[in-house]
């Protein structure tokens, strides 16, 4: 609706003919861009939590890219000076169209959506589909196992969940780690070190549920052997220094008498200090 309003305003505020006005073709291009960006903004906002950007908004984003491209490439029908790209993109200080498109591009880059889309960016990649499948499965598993005990939510009563969903969770976790490793090997630059935000966020939610809410990960702490081994190692240097102090022969230096006129007096002085 917003885009509609915007477009109407543009149409409505038609200025007198003598002033340089936007070509009709350009005007329609601009309107299309406005509409597209409004749609994308809406999509991004609605899918902010839990993050589903890459799954839901990639179509909008691609369309917007196309619209921006057509503005940048459009030449208009008349002379060179009146082409759309120039009049829309660069004729004022604010350059709102450029700013908007930059914002969307940056957001898309930061979300790293390219990572979970297919190479031709149509649809999710196979590994992402697989991951999301598993993710949904684990969520369903959580729900199923919690239903019975929804009444009492004391933190210790989640053992059922932990037992029953362990398999799915482990699978999910392993798949995520695998994806991450693959990703690291493939790309060199800093951006591709991350998976796309949808996958990362999904994993994050699950992990939080698993280890914070359900308290399912209890690592085995074996403090006693660790203390024993470390105190043994820490004890070794003490033995070493003591034994080398007691058994090693102290290194002696042989003093040389310098050939000097007054050497005797000074040497006696020094020798007495150290004897």
């Amino acid at each position, binding site marked *: 609706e917003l885009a509609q309003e915007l477009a109407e305003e543009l149409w409505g505020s038609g200025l007198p003919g003598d002033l340089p006005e936007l070509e009709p073709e350009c005007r329609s291009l601009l309107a299309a861009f406005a509409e597209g960006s409004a749609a994308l903004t809406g999509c991004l906002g609605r899918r902010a939590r839990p993050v589903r950007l890459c799954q839901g908004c990639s179509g909008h984003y691609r369309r917007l890219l196309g619209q921006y491209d057509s503005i940048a490439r459009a030449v208009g029908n008349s002379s060179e000076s009146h082409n759309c790209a120039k009049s829309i993109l660069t004729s004022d200080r604010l350059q709102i169209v450029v700013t908007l498109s930059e914002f969307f591009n940056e957001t898309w880059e930061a979300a790293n959506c390219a990572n979970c889309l297919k190479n031709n960016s149509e649809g999710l990649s196979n590994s992402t589909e697989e991951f999301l499948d598993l993710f949904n499965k684990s969520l369903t598993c959580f729900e199923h196992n919690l239903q019975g005990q929804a009444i009492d939510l004391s933190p210790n009563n989640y053992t059922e969940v932990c037992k029953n969903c362990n398999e799915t969770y482990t699978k999910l976790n392993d798949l995520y780690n695998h994806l991450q490793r693959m990703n690291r090997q493939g790309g*060199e630059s800093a951006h591709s070190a991350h998976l796309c935000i949808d996958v990362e966020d999904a994993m994050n939610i699950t992990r939080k549920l698993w*280890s914070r809410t359900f308290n399912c990960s209890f*690592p085995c702490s074996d403090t006693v052997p660790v203390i024993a081994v470390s105190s043994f190692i820490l004890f070794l*240097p003490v033995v070493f220094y003591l034994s080398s102090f007691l058994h*090693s022969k102290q290194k*002696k230096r042989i*003093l040389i008498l310098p050939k000097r006129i007054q050497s005797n*007096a000074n040497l006696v002085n020094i020798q007495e200090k150290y004897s």
Partner: protein
Amino acid sequence: QLTPSSFLRIGQLSNVDLNEDIHELETEVPRQRPNEIPHNEKLLSLKYESLDYDNSENQLFLEEERRINHAAFRTVEIKRWVICAMIGILTGLVACFIDIVVENLAGLKYRVVKDNIDKFTAKGGLSFSLLLWATLNASVVMVGSLIVAFIEPVAAGSGIPQIKCYLNGVKIPHVVRLKTLVIKVCGVILSVVGGLAVGKEGPMIHSGSVIAAGISQGRSTSLKRDFKIFEYFRRDTEKRDFVSAGAAAGVSAAFGAPVGGVLFSLEEGASFWNQFLTWRIFFASMISTFTLNSVLSVYHGNAWDLSSPGLINFGRFDSEKMGYTIQEIPIFIFMGVVGGILGALFNALNYWLTMFRIRYIHRPCLQVVEAMLVAAVTATVGFVMIYCSRDCQPIQGSSVAYPLQLFCADGEYNSMATAFFNTPEKSVVNLFHDPPGSYNPMALGMFTLMYFFLACWTYGLTVSAGVFIPSLLIGAAWGRLFGISLSYLTKGSIWADPGKYALMGAAAQLGGIVRMTLSLTVIMMEATGNVTYGFPIMLVLMTAKIVGDYFVEGLYDMHIQLQSVPFLHWEAPVTSHSLTAREVMSTPVTCLRRIERVGTVVDILSDTSSNHNGFPVVESNPDTTQVAGLRGLILRSQLIVLLKHKVFVERANLSLVQRRLKLKDFRDAYPRFPPIQSIHVSQDERECMIDLSEFMNPSPYTVPQEASLPRVFKLFRALGLRHLVVVDNRNEVVGMVTRKDLARYRLGKEGLEELSLAQT
């Protein structure tokens, strides 16, 4: 000549109080038997000799100069530039090699240990992970220590004290050999991979120096290869100039600080300096950092990016929060004070430890065992700290290389592991740049404390490793802690960014330990890439030095002293004007006549009780009974070359076709002249005569007997002399001043003290 009155006069002038003096005069019995004492810091070792910086302007030299025309000297100048470029390139390449190998090996190690820990966290049995980590560290360090202890002990440590001595004019045996370079490079890689609290930056300076010394000679005596190039530079003077260029190139490659490198050479070897040399050294430095930068950027896959000018990059400090205001200056100065005190504490602890090591842990196998123990303990301390820490940080959005989960919730990592489970360089950069709140103050405090003792314990081990990075890390840790508490006190003001304080703390700690001034300021400035930090860094370093010097001296100076090196400081001790050359000099002097019997020369040279290197040459008039006037000075190395080529008067008469000796013959023997024992002189030849007038330096520097110690010192230090002849007013030789005669006077706690000579 020695009257009782003169004795009394000397006794009064030397700096001991009068009562003791009388006591001494009474008990003045010359003790002849060798006296054994435990090692202490008030000794000068006989092992160290001076370098011959003074050019011997003998007949051969003049002949050569006449023969070489003007154009040839221009080629010599061009060759100097070529050599400097090669020094830069090779130093950069060596730095790249170290960096890449360390990165890969350390990465491999941490991955193995991390996988192991992850496995055992789930199943139990973390003590095995601890054992694995400790064993891995210890075995890697064992190899590193073995090669140093058994193959080349001079490669131990950071090498900066050794290079400082070399530039000062002391010949440290083996210090610029190719073998040392190889051991140094491998040793550094192994000790960093072995997880010791060390850095790879300091040894770069030594490596650069060895490269410089090697290239400028155009040959390697270790490999027995002579490339027949750069023969003109086979002299101590020329070599020293190139070594200072190499040291600068090393600093520049280590920190990405070309100007800092030049200033480092200036600060450490400043008594011999000229402007042309500065410009050449700067050239070598620039080439070095550029080479490192381009090769590393190609290696990291973004060629032409040129984003890694040094082995360590402090990262960029140009965000809004990183700026400082005038009000913060007093805070920085306070940090400088803290750094000075902590640095002095570090040095004092290390002093006791080093003394213990010299006295008791002198056998190579013990040294290796000690290094292994330190490596194992370092791993253990790290593990225990990580194990005990319950400080978890979300893994998302952080750039941790090896996140250890341990007892944290899934998706989080142990924040203590970022500090301990990483190479020290990475930890430093993390401390500078991690956003506020990444570190738990408690954990950081424990880390600082532990790392302080570990680093102190590690320095002085028989492994090649530097102290720069550990110092920076300690400083960055307490600096960050300081910053955190400051922002806590000020209720989170925007200006109290902990990263900035981490940087200042790092500077303060490093300054407090090594006490470098000008060069360190510039190095830090260049490493941060922020010129506005120059002022606070300078203030911090200045304060740290002043405060630290109040307690003990700098780490490098301390180690030089503990090695009993006859090091000449900038100036003679201030209260020494009453000492004259007569009291300082050694006497009597072994002189040679201008035309001397070969037998005498051989006997003098093979006398083991006096390993003199320079012999005054006196007039050989047989009719005069008294000591004849000084005519020149000849060096042991020259005599050996003469004996080797059998340049005897009789032989010259016998065979007129015999090739005349040239300066080249002396240069070819440089720098390892054969010992006198290896030269065979037959009984007949002993009776021959040898004419020294062509080969001796006809105008050696001399001083009168009455010259004061500071005057002698100035002449000696400024010209880089090795022998200074003391003459009376009839130009007769009465004594000889050498480096050890001057270096033995030192300003101690109770005024002027004198060091004694010792065999080590």
